[in-house]
């Protein structure tokens, strides 16, 4: 069993412990009843996604300054994990909205800005996948990674800047009873650990992929080898 498998196993165990707290320890909400339990992972996934995009911002800034391949790899790894966590936030949010608001989706400022965040970083990943790998692509992606982060504070403050369906911040306004707050804090810590493990695994994958000759370059090498000698 490798170090990464052990870390992933630990992350899964921690998430199961958080799940036990969510389903068996946290009290039922008086108004929203059972669906309120979606809140714990929905918000934790959003915070972990923000943390991943902050890593993309840091990695991209370091890459633009030093052209460090490690910083670029870290940004690539964190962007993918951030997009996966934003997908979890959006899907769980839609399933939370249906019983509470009566609809899966509404063009509320929080929902729309989160969808825009998902599109920005999905675009970043597409750019990395489709463009020819090299310094120019890495530099361009770093700029996208830095400017894309502008949407993170917009998502966070959207509930205070614009009026909509989405509730305002409940954690910082001390609106949760102690058992719910404890459950949320544990879930958030476990989700952040899971996100860190995922980024570490993706970073290792990116390193191995960078070290391996790409199929495109192998094809070019093969084509060059097959090229007939020019007539002299």
């Amino acid at each position, binding site marked *: 069993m490798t170090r990464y*498998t052990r870390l992933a196993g630990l992350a899964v165990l921690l998430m199961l412990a958080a799940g036990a707290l969510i389903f068996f320890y946290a009290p039922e909400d008086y108004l929203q009843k059972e669906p309120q339990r*979606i809140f714990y992972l*929905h918000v934790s996934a959003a915070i972990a996604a923000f943390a991943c995009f902050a890593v993309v911002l840091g990695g991209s800034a370091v890459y633009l300054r030093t052209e460090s391949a490690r910083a670029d790899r870290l940004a690539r790894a964190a962007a993918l994990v951030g997009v996966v966590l934003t997908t979890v936030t959006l*899907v769980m949010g839609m399933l939370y909205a249906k019983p509470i608001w009566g609809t899966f989706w509404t063009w509320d400022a929080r929902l729309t800005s989160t969808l825009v965040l998902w599109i920005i970083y999905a675009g970043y990943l597409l750019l990395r996948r489709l463009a020819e790998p090299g310094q120019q692509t890495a530099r361009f992606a770093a700029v996208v990674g830095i400017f894309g982060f502008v949407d993170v504070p917009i998502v966070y403050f959207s509930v205070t800047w614009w009026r909509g369906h989405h509730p305002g911040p409940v954690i910082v306004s001390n609106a949760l009873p102690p058992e719910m707050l404890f459950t949320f804090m544990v879930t958030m810590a476990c989700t952040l650990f899971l996100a860190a493990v*995922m980024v570490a695994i993706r970073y290792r*994958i990116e390193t*191995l992929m960078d*070290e*391996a000759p790409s199929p495109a370059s192998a094809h070019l090498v093969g084509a060059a080898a097959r090229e007939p000698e020019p007539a002299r």
Partner: protein
Amino acid sequence: MIYLVAAYVFGVLILGGFLALSLSQLRELKARASTKK
């Protein structure tokens, strides 16, 4: 109740699936790298 269960099933499928796929990709890349050496 159905939405609570559906939300956690989707959450676990997305996160668990991504983790499992990443571990499998890592194992494959490591195996490929070791055979090249």
